[in-house]
């Protein structure tokens, strides 16, 4: 184990993933991130106060390229030693040793990250929904709240029996299961409608892709419907996500319907067995 623990300045890696805290779920997390079906396997640096918990990964293929920084992830020095300035993503796992106070450590870690590099992609695991408002003051990009996830999954399984199997399929990273991918619109489909793109994708039998929705940016409005502007007078933009755009109707005021014309910067959400190559397939 000692041999695996190196100083950050020895790593010399970039575009890597940092995992803060080593918990029971870290093993599965590493296996998902380094699954053979993942095209670009990024090196992983784990920051933990208990490096002895990390299994001996020498014999395991998925553990290749994993490094450890011993320290508290809410400490800026530990984050810097893990090379946070050049990392692609930081994952903060809830420290299960702290039980109910684990979220406090997660918040402290996000604040430390924000202080060093606020625009890095951060994924945080949060135990209690009551702590979610505190994350509004941080730059965390994605929050997985265990409490909400549990309640929603159980409720959905109850009302749509079998749905947990579908979610398991969509969430499992492997070559023979589906995942959800976010892709840019192929350039030659800019200006065409969502429905046209959908039909073209359905006709792509060889790729087994399902187009489920689109993401776009729109001007943010206040509760009165007025467009919000920043202190320079520019419109504030916000991202919107539309699953299953509907047929255009008089009763709905949304501009994101099936006949919405795709613009540059829009993205599509796809279900596929591996990362689809839309630009190539739709030529």
């Amino acid at each position, binding site marked *: 184990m000692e041999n695996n623990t190196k100083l950050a300045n020895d790593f010399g890696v970039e575009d890597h993933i940092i995992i803060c805290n080593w918990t*029971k779920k870290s093993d*599965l997390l590493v296996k998902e*991130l380094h699954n053979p079906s993942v095209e670009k396997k990024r090196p992983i640096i784990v920051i933990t106060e208990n490096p002895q918990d990390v299994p001996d990964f020498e014999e395991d293929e998925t553990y290749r390229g994993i490094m450890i920084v011993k320290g508290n992830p809410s400490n800026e020095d530990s984050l810097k030693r893990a090379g946070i300035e050049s990392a692609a993503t930081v994952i903060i796992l809830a420290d299960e040793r702290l039980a109910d106070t684990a979220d406090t450590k997660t918040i402290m870690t996000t604040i430390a990250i924000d202080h060093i590099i606020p625009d890095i992609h951060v994924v945080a*695991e949060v135990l209690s929904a009551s702590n979610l408002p505190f994350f509004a003051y941080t730059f965390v990009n*994605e929050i*997985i709240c265990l409490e909400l996830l549990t309640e929603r999954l159980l409720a959905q399984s109850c009302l749509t029996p079998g749905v947990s199997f579908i979610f398991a399929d969509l969430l499992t990273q492997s070559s023979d299961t589906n995942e959800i991918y976010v892709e840019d619109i192929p350039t030659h489909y800019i200006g065409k409608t969502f429905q046209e793109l959908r039909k073209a994708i359905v006709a792509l039998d060889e790729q*087994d892709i399902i187009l489920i929705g689109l993401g776009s940016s729109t001007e943010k409005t206040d509760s009165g419907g007025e467009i919000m502007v920043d202190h320079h007078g520019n419109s504030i933009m916000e991202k919107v996500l539309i*699953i299953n755009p509907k047929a255009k109707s008089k009763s709905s005021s949304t501009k994101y319907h099936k006949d919405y014309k795709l613009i540059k910067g829009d993205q599509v959400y796809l*279900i596929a067995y591996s990362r689809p190559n839309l630009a190539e397939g739709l030529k």
Partner: protein
Amino acid sequence: MLILISVWFIGGTLTILSQWIISPEVQKSTHDYLQYYWIVFIEVTSGFDVGGEVKRLNTLSFGITILMLIAGMIIGGLVSGQIIAIILNAAQKAGLVAEAPNNFKFIDPIIIFGINKHLHGIISSVRRIDGNANRDIIIIDEEADEISILDESDYKNIWYIKSDPSRRNYLKEIFDRNISSDFKQSDINQLYKASQKSCRVILLPNQKKDSNLEFIDPETIQKAMEIETFKENVYTIIQLQSVESKRYLKGKQIDEWLNISDYSTKMIAQAALSPGITNIFNNIMGGGNEDTNEMIRLSLIHDSLSNLSFRDIKNWIVNDPNIDCILLGFCKFLKEDDKGIERLRNPNYYFQINPVEPHRQKYYRDTYNSMSVKFNKDTILNEGHQNDLLVYFANKNIAFDQYIKRR
């Protein structure tokens, strides 16, 4: 009370008049006449005949007595109902969930077995996903009488049944007493016709601080198995604490199991691999905008689409711009020959999401020994039966036949 007094007075007076006019010889004094008020009072308040007195009555008085007995039963029912309503109101005013009425058989309720910190969240999620359905939810636990109402609108039609694990067969007693076995009225049975399932039971693990972590999952599984020993047609969903516990489920008939740690870890990995993905899952798991309510849904395949391949149905849906859904796959009813060793939950059905081309199905099977691609795009649906289901994203359940009729 006014009705009770009126019925008593009218009934008593009519009996006295009838006895005085038709058979005055039976009564020896005024006191005997006044006794009829007492007899009628007993009949009206209890619904039972006062034994022996009936011999003194003539035919008309006997008829009046019968009417009084019926009135007594009705008034008794009304009074009991009023008392129950007062108790329920009192319980609700005290901010607690009301007890399920004794001997009332609920049809197709959702049963939540056990209490933990997720209970309130599950109730509000069910209400949110289910729209205005307000279906009955019954909570069974030793401490179920202490559940507080957090939100009046979410807690309509929520009932508790206090369990007593020290009594043998206490679960069976509860199900026999309060749950209707008429699975034909159940909406779950309308979807999974071949399974003949009725109410849904969610089994929550006991997450109290003094609970031994090693025994939490076996205890939950044991409860699920216990229910299934006397009630085969319930749809059981259990929440597991540890992924290791899945091994205990081999050969059991538990329909769905959820290990949240497993799901959350995989979601974290997906979020790291595809930034922005959490937002999509959040939306399709019922956490999106209340106006959209976009979720995974299931519908039976209409007769006119029977014997078509998945590919044909998908092309039909995509080419009709008025059908507002994204077809994800299908849920195939398995005949005996089709059943394999795959990771089946509901053993009579198989979920095939994003069916692949036949040659790719062969590739996945040969290369990865895959159990995720049992069927392909050319699989014929509803072949020889009408049990298959379509799986799709939509903001409401779609009756596909309405589009067929229009066409």
